[in-house]
């Protein structure tokens, strides 16, 4: 079929066959049995680190905000 033909047109017999062949690939069982364990292992050290970084961000944001206010106050005076 050409590129301009309607995408919703019924599939040709060849397209139907290609689709059926590809559906067979769904039966392939991926490896990766340890995936959940490896992800949660990574998350166990990432979570506290992230919290710490967020806390640092909040603290430094507060300090910077305070400094900015102080600087603005000094300039006004």
């Amino acid at each position, binding site marked *: 079929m050409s590129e301009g033909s309607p995408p919703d047109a019924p599939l040709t017999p060849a397209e139907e066959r290609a689709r059926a062949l590809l559906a067979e*690939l769904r039966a392939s069982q991926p490896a990766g049995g340890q995936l959940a364990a490896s992800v*949660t292992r990574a998350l166990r050290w990432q979570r506290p680190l992230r919290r710490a970084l967020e806390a640092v961000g909040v603290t430094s944001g507060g300090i910077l905000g305070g400094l900015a206010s102080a600087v603005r106050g000094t300039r006004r005076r």
Partner: protein
Amino acid sequence: MSGVVEGMAAPDDALVAATLRGDLRAFEHLIERHRDVVLRVGARIAGDDAEDVAQDTFLRAYHRLARWRGEAPFRTWLLRIAHNSAIDHVGARQVEHVALDEGVDEVPDGERTPAERLEAAERRRRLDTKLKGLAPAHRTVLVLRDVEGLSYEEIAAVTNMPLGSVKARLHRARNEFIDLLQRNTYDWELPR
């Protein structure tokens, strides 16, 4: 774990909510539930990097979990992350190999002779090779639609493409794939 979340039986949104409350076990259930489709999509887009793609996908998903609002199904949202992660992994390199265990079949082993099982495994291996011959953008839509059975709307959400473009690209991809199948002597039983 919270009393609301009953492990693998709980719906995705309940597991997401439990994860956001700090329940890592709930997130493990989400991984177990969606692991296979993420690995399959990762394998067929990024080849050998499938496990890295899957791990990266779930880590990214965890850190962005609060952003999932439930407008799209969790699987669609997750596959969008997987798609982006796979594309990142592919980068400039060529996909060389797709590593999937061919030992599992839809038809139970007892109902197939060893010769039939070998034949099915060989056909899947050849199909994988043919898929790798497609342009990555074509391979992606074909895998999402014809291998994983996603709807056009889901594919549009995963790939961030307009619906019409998804349909047009899928149409081109399927025909490119047929051309590839017709270019060898293996009998795919394709109607002429």
